[in-house]
């Protein structure tokens, strides 16, 4: 923060930030404002125009058991995805951190999935788990294990959790690997000299020293699971069967775009937006404190 360039006058600085401001204005503030506005309206019965109804949409939302279920489902989904993606990534990072042959190749391969588009990762899982054409799906059915995520909500949820977590493993892996490598080698060696081995050394030395990374990743993963998994879920299950895989974001889309309940859907978006703001604020708080400490 020391290297600042000071521009004189008013015009040049204004011009320099203008493009960013325009973008933010058109792609965030405008739609956000529109969402806030339409969350307080409802379409009249003949579809002729919208009527201002105040906070009625919100009141309706929070008394809707389906919405409350969706919240719970989303929380569960986010936790499952985050924990799975982080645990697998940590395991892989621990192995990649060792002195092994072909380490560079191994690491590169692990980073690749991050570059795969959500829809593609969904297709990948379809090819694996589809009951008719999927490798694993067919194998399961042939061996007497009924597998069809079109019918079984639990299986559908499992599948979107797997697909969503898989995509995030790479990202977590990079951070965990960097975290592991920033642990001073001498500290680990001191623990070895103190007699600590294996799981115990991992639990008492490595894991605590990774705590900042873990916290950061937890926030990022929760946000990812809550908002960025739309593509993956929609490509695999479209939120079904029933509402089995309908997270809040999917619900916004289904209610708004498919069921044409613009007011209710907008109210949901506004709630989500507030959620993002809170999470981001929390994250900035902690991260800011860490770096300045």
């Amino acid at each position, binding site marked *: 923060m020391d290297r600042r360039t000071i521009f004189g006058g008013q015009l040049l600085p204004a011009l320099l930030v203008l493009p960013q401001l325009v973008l933010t204005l058109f792609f965030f503030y405008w739609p956000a404002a529109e969402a806030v506005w339409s969350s307080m309206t409802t379409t009249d019965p003949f579809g002729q125009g919208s009527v201002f109804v105040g906070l009625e949409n919100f009141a309706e939302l929070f008394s809707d058991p389906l919405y409350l279920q969706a919240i719970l489902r989303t929380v569960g989904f986010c936790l499952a995805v985050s924990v799975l993606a982080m645990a697998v990534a940590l395991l892989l990072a621990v192995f990649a951190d060792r002195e092994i042959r072909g380490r560079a190749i191994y690491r590169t391969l692990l980073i690749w999935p991050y570059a795969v588009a959500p829809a593609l990762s969904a297709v990948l899982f379809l090819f694996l788990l589809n009951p008719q054409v999927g490798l694993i799906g067919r194998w399961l059915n042939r061996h007497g294990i009924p597998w069809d995520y079109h019918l079984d909500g639990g299986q559908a949820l499992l599948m979107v959790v797997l697909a969503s977590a898989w995509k995030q493993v790479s990202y977590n892996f990079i951070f965990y690997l960097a975290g592991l490598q920033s642990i*001073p080698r*001498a500290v680990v*060696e*001191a*623990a070895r*000299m*103190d*007699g*600590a*081995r294996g799981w115990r050394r991992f639990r008492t030395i490595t894991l605590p020293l990774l705590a900042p990374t873990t916290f950061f990743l937890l926030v990022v993963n929760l946000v990812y699971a809550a908002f960025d998994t739309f593509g993956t879920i929609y490509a695999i299950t479209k939120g079904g069967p029933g509402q089995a895989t309908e997270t809040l974001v999917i619900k916004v889309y289904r209610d708004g775009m498919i069921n044409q309940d613009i007011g209710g859907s907008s109210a949901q978006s506004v709630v989500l937006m507030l959620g993002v703001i809170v999470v981001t604020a929390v994250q900035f708080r902690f991260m800011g404190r860490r770096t300045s400490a």
Partner: protein
Amino acid sequence: MATLELQGLRKSFGETEVLRRIDLTLADGEMLVIVGASGCGKSTLLRLVAGLESPTEGRILLDGTDVAARDPAERDIAMVFQNYALYPHMTVFDNMAYGLRIRGLSRDAIRQRVDEAAGLLGLGELLQRKPRQLSGGQRQRVAMGRAIVREPKLFLFDEPLSNLDAKLRVQMRAEIRRLQRRLGVTSLYVTHDQVEAMTLGDRLLVLHNGHPAQLATPIEVFEQPADTYVAGFIGAPAMNFLDATLTESGRAARLAVGPVLRFPDGPRPGPEGRRLTIGIRPEHLALAAQGLPLAVELVEPLGSESLIHGHLQGGVPLVVKHPGHAPGGETVQVALLPEHMHVFDHETGRRLPPIGAETGAPRLVAAGSDQ
């Protein structure tokens, strides 16, 4: 407390041979200081003993048992690292207690040992602090404490004082020596500080490119360096070296810069004209009315003494340590004191003892096995 014996220890990293044949024995309670230039393999030697690296060849006997194949956890050795390597997320107390908890000591026993060590090191007030809330000297003490509480068979120190300022270093140096004596734990201490090398150990091992160049008491290393490398490495400012040839049937050396010096301790072997290197420390040169003319280039006044850097005729560099202030002038006359000169063979660089005294240096380690 234990004895340590290294037998034919070698270590290579791929093609690079870092340690070539280290043989040494440490008596129970002995402190051996290892010195050598940067990169000569000091840390590698310690890490082999610690078990953090495994030897390419050779045996490491701790109390007579070969531990070369054992995990560090099974060796019962404590190490103090150069950058302390404290556990940053634990309090001072937990840092010290960590190894004891792993050994399964009772809470009371742990508390007692940690308190004792903390008392010994003056850490009593700091037990609940985290390492980042400590000064460098305090961290150093915690690292010591962590080693002490374990009551290990062996202490390893890898340049433990190099991150401290000069004053603290002097203080901690004395403290380490006192503690080591008091606890009587066999120790290996790596340093490249001259004073630590001279004062801390019972014996001194000078490493040169992975070879043991000399293993002897510090005084012996200083007074009878085994070769020109050791002679130049131990002592500050470094020893001066002058080319010479053997003359007067081995009873004197003719310096390339002129004068003939008779050996006070007896004749050296070899034919007339054998090439020698004569070593003489700066403090054993004196300014005199009559002597070798030295063209002065630089005078460093150190307060109680001055260092005079210059050239003899033919461009041979020479440093003189002169008590008091150096006289002005562009040339001074320097007298050599023959009783303090060291005689080395020019080809091998090895010390050339007087005839009949060759057996008088049994503690030279086989650095010259390539002879």
